């Protein structure tokens, strides 16, 4: 059984990565507010890095890394529901295949 802090940290890492990527997307589409979007993204990046190292204290890498595959799904959902991107079935299929591949690679890298 994992340390209870581990699952909380995993969720935080996923939330941070998703927010960071959303900020990059906003920065790309709005050059006037580029710095106001990128600066918090960089801060989030560093916080995420610290939480990631903290997480690795409680969880082996081979277990933590596959869980980060949830980033692909979370960011696709943000694209679909917040940025109104149209995701056709090849795109969902591609995301699913990449997710499977990522988990296979990550699970072996403990």
């Amino acid at each position, binding site marked *: 059984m994992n340390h209870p802090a581990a699952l909380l940290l995993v969720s935080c890492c996923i939330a941070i990565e998703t927010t960071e990527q959303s900020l990059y997307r906003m920065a790309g589409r709005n050059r006037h507010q580029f710095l106001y979007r990128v600066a918090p993204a960089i801060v989030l990046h560093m916080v995420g890095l610290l939480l990631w190292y903290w997480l690795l204290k409680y969880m082996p890498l081979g277990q933590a890394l596959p869980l980060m595959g949830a980033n692909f799904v979370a960011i696709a959902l943000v694209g679909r529901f917040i*940025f109104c991107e149209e995701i056709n079935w090849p795109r969902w299929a591609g995301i699913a295949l990449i997710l499977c591949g990522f988990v296979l690679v990550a699970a072996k890298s403990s």
Partner: protein
Amino acid sequence: MITTPRKNFPLAFFAFLLLLDVTVYLLQKFASLQAAHHGSGFFIHLGMEPWAWIALAIGPIQLLIWTRILEHVDISLAYPLTSLAYPLTLLASQFILGESLHWQVWIGASLITLGSAIMGMSSNKTRISTAQPIIPAEQHP
């Protein structure tokens, strides 16, 4: 739903981003190998490695390219495609570092490549929606 034709995928930017990704991973590996040579004080020696600093300096370049890509490409397409850096790094680690890998890793890398190919091939036929995004700042000026 009203749709507009997608702009061409910024392939050159994307290829350059992947190249930088692989370069950063390799530089980090070189730097940590060098630092590990010295025995004690790993992080102090890591801080004295030029490779580590070059890897760090590539970060801002990647940020500029990445935001430029996201200007034209859906994040639900671009973000999963960045995972192509993993199979490319595996290949580089074979040829440059001579690492040997488990078959499960090769299957995983093939799945990532296949998934990216499916997404990439369908992206030209995809049309971007002009539906109003929830966040108003998203509109083009």
